[in-house]
């Protein structure tokens, strides 16, 4: 399984790509594999300011449903506009076409608490 070194990770299986004051967020390859075939990604929090660990959306797979959690505090700037029509992109390309939201990072100090790829791999036993 692939866990790019340039991303940061959470215990809830989200990844974070930091680009200046903005973070792009999705779920990891491990998470998409555990969920199985993804049917909908429901994100209705665009424009809202959410705290770290708040729910920003929900991912519905055929067999299961899972909440999506904010890795950091911030305003949800946008969601992936292609994800409604193409939710399977989360299965096929979780770090690329399957990205979920972009967030304006409110508290950069929270980034230090996120996991490295190595720490995340250790957590999931890879």
């Amino acid at each position, binding site marked *: 399984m692939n866990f790019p070194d340039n991303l940061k990770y959470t215990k809830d299986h989200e990844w974070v790509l930091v680009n200046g004051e903005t973070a792009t967020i999705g779920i990891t390859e491990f998470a998409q594999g555990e969920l199985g*075939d993804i049917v*909908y990604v429901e994100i209705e929090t665009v424009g809202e300011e959410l705290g770290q660990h708040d729910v920003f959306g929900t991912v*519905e797979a*055929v*067999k299961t*449903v899972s909440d999506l959690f904010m890795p950091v505090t911030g305003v949800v700037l946008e969601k992936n506009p292609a994800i409604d029509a193409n939710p399977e992109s989360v*299965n096929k390309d979780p770090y690329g076409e399957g990205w979920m939201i972009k967030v304006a990072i409110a508290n950069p100090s929270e980034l230090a608490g996120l996991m490295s790829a190595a720490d995340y791999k250790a957590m999931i036993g890879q």
Partner: protein
Amino acid sequence: MDAAADTLKNTALLEKHIALGAKIVPFAGYNMPVSYSGLNDEHLTVRNAVGVFDVSHMGEFILKGDKALDLIQLVTSNDASALTDGRVQYSCLPNGKGGIVDDLLVYRIDGKTYMLVVNASNIEKDWNWISKHNNFGVDMKDISDRTSLLAVQGPKATDTLQKLTDISLADIPYYHFKKGKFAGEENIVISNTGYTGAGGFEIYFDNNLASKIWDAVFAAGAEFGIKPVGLGARDTLRLEMGFCLYGNDIDDTTSPIEAGLGWITKFNKEFTDKALLSEQKEKGVSRKLVGFEMIDRGIPRHDYEIADAAGNIIGKVTSGTQSPSLQKGIGMGYVQTTFSKPETEIFIKIRDKALKAKVAKIPFYKK
């Protein structure tokens, strides 16, 4: 591995599943494959070609004796006297309080020998229940631990399996079986049954043949794109057909009449709960199990509440999924009888929303 995992049983084919990259989960006391290539892919393989399920966790009891039929008639709801040699019947075990101990298949091997096939999670419970009613001197054997079961399902199942036997599979009608030579081995039960609505057979044999038969079936089906299929797709396939799953749609608190199983509840014989169920059938029941499909976008799941347009709770979802064949949310659940007619608008409470759905006729999926 936690303590509970240590006590899980394995089917004779666990190593095969692991080698095929299956995701293994604990289910009904067994380590079972839940998926291999992906649920949708496995599901559509069964609908369009042929797939193989290892369902060796299922329980099998052999009942033998002059009065075997009397015992079966007493404990089951369907009329087993209608069976002839080589026929199978879907039935259930009423629990004496209007609920269901389990649902099962009854195989008539001969006039004095029957095989009952029960759910893995209920093997012990069913055994105790039937034993308790065995005042007939019937010899009972639990052969679950030494019996393997493969369900080979899909439109290419017959073509696949016919390569492995001289028994004409086209001459085994639905809910019939034959015992004979298969893949070079004797005494294999070949049953035209399944839990998918896709057609195909279920094959029963001793554990020591499991590896050989598994390999033979996959070799025979290679030209049709045969694939292994896990419990995940087994659930979506059965739900598209509106087949009940014990523990979800039926259990010790639901009656066969409420569950739409009146067709396997026959009042021309004596059996457990006959009077109670007969009264329910005549007077009607206050809730019924219905199928429904989503109108709004959403996926119903077990235990979600069902509401009417005014927001009153009228029932609960017992099974739900995104249908891989129909590409929409489908489910089953109990609703107040006044809401049970097809096309009735109902609302499924999914997180903080009430999403529109309508009562639908089952099966959801039609060929």
